[in-house]
């Protein structure tokens, strides 16, 4: 084969003698360098602002503020699915409200869980803008605590809520997380305890220890909300969640980890546990009172709800008015209206959770002719029954929240 001396090659000579970088290449290089420099600056400069000091400032005169507000005739109300009386696609309680006050209500059942709804609204509130809703329903828990601590909620003007003063039961007035109801008006409350399938479990059940019984291996449901899971562990250890310490939480986490590792837990469920229970996939599960009550009345009489001897946990969903709301007066008028016994009765008779208005009980029994609901301890618990219910640990700081979540989330998401 003939070998060629490349030094005689024209192309090689041209390549070696002409400038290596054309002008355009230099320009491109410079542009690239400028771009990467700019990006480095961009990265270095940016941080993410926190939520601190993004709410209303301390010392705001809320009495004066409320005096200046006017009724606008419309209300944007965000709540949870299936959480208000519904009849043929309409909501009678809201219609009565519109008829009485002339306020048009846009009802949006958009809240699926507290954490994801909070993550949607918090950037808006952080920017000091209206979230588009005048009234939202949030459960007591870390997200509600943040809304209060960030001063992202408007303090309620109790002088505009005479029905609340008159009719609110202890469920709505004895709030560990908001002792003077500065921000919160309870919409409904409920109990987290145990539900079981009579076909699979020999009742009666009276202890939370059934959730740790190897007999039901693979047929036990636990809730995927770390607050619910952790309190179940605490109750099983005989610890009162409200006064529990970090050491207690660790013990509860150990117990729950063992429960999972032994194969007892079928799954950590969101609201879908009730379907699994109805389908027979679960024998026993952590459960919310209203879900089981509704299931019993829709063809599953074999499902039972019990508050074990260790106690159940009471939670409350609260109506709160977000800061920058466009129609605060309309919102507070609805809060007041919802505490009218006749209206509270309409709502409670449909949603079957604990009603914050005890005076609604005779109305449900007589006028609505629904003694099953009126006499249910899950809708109108007696004071004695309420005393058996425990409160969640109140999380005041981010550190506490992170400690709690850091212990229980790894169990749920292993």
């Amino acid at each position, binding site marked *: 084969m003939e070998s060629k001396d490349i030094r005689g090659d024209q192309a090689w000579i041209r390549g070696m003698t002409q400038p290596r970088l054309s002008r*355009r290449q230099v320009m491109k290089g410079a542009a690239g360098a400028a771009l990467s420099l700019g*990006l480095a600056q*961009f*990265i*270095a400069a*940016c*941080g*993410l*602002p*926190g*939520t*601190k000091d993004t709410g209303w400032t301390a010392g705001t005169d809320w009495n004066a503020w409320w005096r200046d507000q006017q009724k606008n005739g419309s209300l944007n109300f965000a709540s949870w699915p299936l959480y208000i009386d519904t009849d043929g696609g309409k909501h009678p309680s809201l219609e009565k409200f519109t008829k009485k006050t002339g306020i048009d209500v846009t009802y949006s059942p958009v809240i699926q869980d507290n*954490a*994801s709804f909070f*993550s949607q609204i918090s950037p808006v509130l952080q920017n000091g803008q209206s979230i588009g809703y005048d009234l939202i329903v949030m459960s007591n828990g870390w997200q509600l605590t*943040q809304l209060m601590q*960030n001063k992202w909620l408007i303090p309620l003007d109790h002088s505009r809520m005479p029905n609340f003063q008159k009719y609110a039961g202890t469920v709505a007035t004895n709030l560990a997380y908001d002792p003077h109801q500065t921000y919160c008006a309870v919409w409904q409350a409920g109990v987290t305890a145990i539900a079981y399938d009579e076909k699979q479990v020999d009742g009666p059940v009276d202890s939370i220890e059934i959730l740790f019984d190897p007999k039901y291996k*693979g*047929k036990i449901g636990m809730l995927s909300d770390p607050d619910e899971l952790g309190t179940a562990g605490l109750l099983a250890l005989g610890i009162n969640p409200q006064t529990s310490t970090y050491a207690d939480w660790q013990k509860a986490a150990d117990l729950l980890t063992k429960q*999972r590792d032994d194969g007892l*837990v*079928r*799954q*950590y469920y969101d609201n*879908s546990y009730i*379907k*699994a229970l109805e*389908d*027979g*996939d679960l024998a026993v599960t952590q459960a919310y009172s209203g879900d089981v009550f509704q299931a019993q009345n829709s063809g599953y009489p074999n499902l039972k709800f019990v508050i074990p001897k260790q106690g159940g946990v009471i939670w409350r969903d609260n109506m709160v008015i977000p800061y920058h709301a466009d129609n605060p007066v309309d919102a507070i008028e609805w809060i007041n209206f919802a505490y009218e016994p006749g209206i509270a009765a309409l709502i409670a008779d449909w949603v079957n959770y604990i009603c914050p208005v005890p005076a609604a009980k005779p109305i449900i029994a007589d006028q609505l002719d629904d003694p099953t609901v009126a006499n249910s301890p899950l809708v109108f618990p007696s004071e004695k029954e309420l005393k058996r219910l425990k409160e969640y640990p109140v999380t005041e700081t*981010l550190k506490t929240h*992170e400690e709690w*979540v850091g212990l229980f*989330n790894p169990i*749920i*998401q*292993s």
Partner: protein
Amino acid sequence: MKSRIAPYLQSAPAMLWLALFFIVPLLAIVSISLMTGNSIDGYTLTWNFAVFPDALNEYSAQLGRSFLYGGISTALALIAMYPVAYWIAFHGGRRKSIFLFLLLLPFLVSFIIRILTWQFILSDEGIVLGTLKDIGILGENAHILSTPVAVITGLTYDALPWMALPIYVALEKIDRDLVEAAGDLYASGYQQFRRIILPLSAPGIYAGILLVGIANIGDYLSAQILGGPSTTMIGNIIQTEYVQNGDYPVASALSLMLMAALLLCVFVYARVFGTRTIQEYA
């Protein structure tokens, strides 16, 4: 001069689009992953590179599981859909488009509804398990829901059309004269398939695997709805860290590592299988 800048001008919209919707968000994620702080006081850039090894260490099981489930479901979808695509392309006749439409029809239904339907189908006393239990094939306590099998089933099912369509397109393009010529030269049916049809459909297989694999490895809904206590995928962790815990740096770091791992896979895959087939047949 005019002709020199013309190509740049022509590609400018695409470049701008990439810069706006890919490069800027990517850089934002990179910078957020290197920040420290919390949601109340805010996050500041501290070049905290330790977040990567820490997060990897903590969530390696979920990351590995994502690739395992993603890989298995992609392989199953390929095995299931190649014959279907083949049949439609070669034997579909005049009704090809109807068959394709039927293939896609279930996927006009919302993703959530389809996954929930699997929950119904696979439930312990449901139409599949209930029947098998009644005729004594399965024990009373057997279950599929909440196990890896259920998650992989959901992932595979959702991948079916995305696997079938590119393979169909590749098969459809094959010149039938080549197959006929192979037959004339005494190639057996198997040889025709092995030497002519399979290599010529390779770009479709390649595209299908990429489309399905990348989507399935990052998926989180199947694990959330059909999974159990030990089927958490990396997508679930990212979602929880971001939405529930507000831990943006860890969520960003995990997203980046997932992306890097996927890119590495795609690169290796392209080196081993891709370039040859694409250069030869594209």
